[in-house]
């Protein structure tokens, strides 16, 4: 019996691959719809579809806590805020036209995407699973973290990244006060 891989038994199965490709296609097609569709309200619904697909991908990556956070904050709060703003500002039928720089921007973003794909494929990543198989990384330590991620995330958040955590709370306070000041009448 070799070293236990993380998520052994699910990692190589055909079903997981099918789930991944379904999520990938739905995320990318919905993202295209967000920027191409004329009706703003439908674009917001397609954005929700993309966010849900990414939450599914988080589950495939064994980040169940982040998947829950993604559904609660993005799908629950941010998309409702966006739909609220669309309804507040009217002009739903006027849609979302492009301006004159559309073609250069399309070329630029395609080039950027191609460059990012090239870099991510050609980089020689120090991957976890081969390192476990070669005995360079302790399989027990990895399995210990992934068997219960939430206490580890809590410890990192409150101990190692506590300064960022505090700054994030100040940022949220500033954002709340700023949004109130902007929206207030007069």
């Amino acid at each position, binding site marked *: 019996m070799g070293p236990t891989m993380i998520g052994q038994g699910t990692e190589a199965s055909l079903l997981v691959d099918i789930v991944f490709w379904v999520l990938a296609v739905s995320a990318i097609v919905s993202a295209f719809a967000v*920027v191409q569709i004329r009706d703003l309200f439908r674009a917001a619904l397609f*954005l929700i579809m993309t966010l849900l697909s990414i939450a599914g991908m988080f589950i495939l990556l064994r980040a169940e806590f982040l998947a829950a956070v993604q559904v609660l904050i*993005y799908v629950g709060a941010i998309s409702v805020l966006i739909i609220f703003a669309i309804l507040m500002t009217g002009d739903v039928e006027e849609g979302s036209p492009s*301006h004159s720089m559309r073609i250069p921007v399309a070329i630029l973003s395609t080039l950027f995407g191609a460059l*990012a794909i090239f870099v991510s494929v050609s980089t020689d990543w120090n991957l976890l699973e081969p390192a476990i198989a070669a005995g360079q990384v302790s399989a027990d330590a990895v399995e210990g973290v992934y068997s219960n991620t939430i206490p*580890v995330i809590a410890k990192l958040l409150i101990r190692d990244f506590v300064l960022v955590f505090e700054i994030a709370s100040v*940022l949220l306070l500033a954002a709340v006060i700023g949004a109130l000041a902007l929206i207030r009448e007069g």
Partner: protein
Amino acid sequence: MGLENFLIVSAVLFSIGFYGALSKRNAITVLMSIELMFNAVNLTAVALSRYVVPESLATAGQNAGQDAAQFLLTGHIFAIFIITVAAAEIALGLAIVIAIYRNSESVFVTDATQMRN
């Protein structure tokens, strides 16, 4: 299904968001495209943290304890902070959009030229 697949998906999502953020006239579509880019970055962070050996674990070797292994989840922490910043950004962004709409009856970024001259 490996690291490259997730990175390619997030690169494609980021390019779509980049295109939308720079080419659309409606400010709400621009904000939605920025959300797409945030999500692509989140996906990259979590995928890298899932598949790549962290430095602390590589140096600790076979006798790695909890303190070295916890940095496997650094990408999760990055994603949590990115989600926090995205929430603050979208709240402020939509407040600005509504303030602009109140002043000029338009949500098009090309019409918000009051500060020119």
